């Protein structure tokens, strides 16, 4: 099914190349030191951040997230986590652009439901149109619906990011068939965003032909986040190499010996 768009080489998003295909979030860590150590171990170049009200009266000398993860070292991808309307999402990303000195690359997510954190696709489409018209480069979290993913691409989003399963659930890739259809039709990078639980999930996403994987909880809530970050780096690399190499054809219900069938010792 998948049209074998197999290419070695870097991930290219909005004309910029990245050697790492693993994108990571910065939430849910114990402290900034653990955040930084895990992100270094992941090798990620693009890291997501949330935009929130400043804690007025916070100790002035306290370091902030962007002191620990400076934009000079990482591509910062501000998100709209927690936004349930297109208006709130657009407003949040305009603030992010001001905060990051005109930075255009953003992650749009508009949620529909607090229990599942499933995306609200009608509001996501409205926000995507407005942001693209306003000059943003939009990477967009979406349902694993090929029609919606294509619609977002046609609006001008620079990457589509379907969920593998619910945000923070760690349930892995529940519908590889839908991802396959999205990959087959997409002309922009497709990244799995949300639902990755462990290294094999990331490898499977990459073996399917995804251009990258975005995760947060799978690393931050692992027993040893720094070691899991390293595992995810290897899984994404291994999955990508397996995809580019091209897997052997599956033979159903029939074994095929790997050793010669001739020259076996006699009775």
């Amino acid at each position: 099914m998948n049209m074998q768009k197999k290419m070695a080489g870097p991930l290219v998003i909005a004309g910029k190349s990245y050697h790492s295909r693993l994108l990571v979030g910065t939430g849910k860590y114990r402290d900034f030191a653990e955040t930084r150590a895990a992100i270094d171990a992941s090798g990620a170049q693009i890291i997501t951040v949330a935009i929130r009200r400043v804690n007025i009266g916070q100790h002035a000398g306290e370091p902030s997230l962007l002191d620990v993860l400076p934009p000079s070292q990482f591509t910062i991808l501000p998100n709209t986590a927690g936004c349930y309307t297109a208006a709130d999402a657009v407003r949040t990303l305009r603030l992010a652009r001001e905060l990051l000195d005109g930075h255009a690359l953003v992650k749009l997510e508009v949620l529909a439901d607090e229990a599942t954190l499933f995306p609200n696709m009608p509001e996501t489409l409205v926000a995507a149109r407005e942001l693209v018209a306003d000059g943003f480069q939009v990477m967009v979290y979406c349902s694993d619906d090929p029609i919606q993913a294509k619609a977002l691409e046609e609006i001008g989003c620079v990457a589509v990011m379907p969920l593998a399963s619910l945000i923070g659930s760690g349930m892995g890739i529940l519908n590889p068939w839908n991802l396959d259809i999205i990959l087959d039709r997409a002309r922009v990078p497709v990244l799995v965003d949300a639902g990755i639980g462990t290294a094999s999930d990331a490898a499977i996403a990459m073996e399917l032909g995804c251009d990258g994987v975005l995760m947060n909880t799978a690393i931050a809530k692992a027993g040893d986040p720094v070691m899991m970050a390293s595992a995810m780096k290897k899984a994404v690399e291994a999955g990508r190499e397996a995809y580019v190499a091209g897997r052997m054809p599956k033979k159903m219900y029939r074994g095929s010996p790997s050793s010669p069938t001739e020259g076996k010792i006699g009775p």
Partner: protein
Amino acid sequence: MLHLQINGKPREIAAECTVEQLVATLQLEGKRFAIELNGDIVPKSRHAATRLKSGDRLEVVVAVGGG
């Protein structure tokens, strides 16, 4: 006194205050933040020239950890 609402909480500050002066009062100088005044972003270049008035609603945001 000016009666402002900053991040959803009431706050009183001295009259004749600009956004730039408010930033100093909040000890945000040198930090990465963004300010919205009554729903519109105030770019950094306009902080010094933007005067506040009673009833103004401000949002002051920063980047935090998130996925």
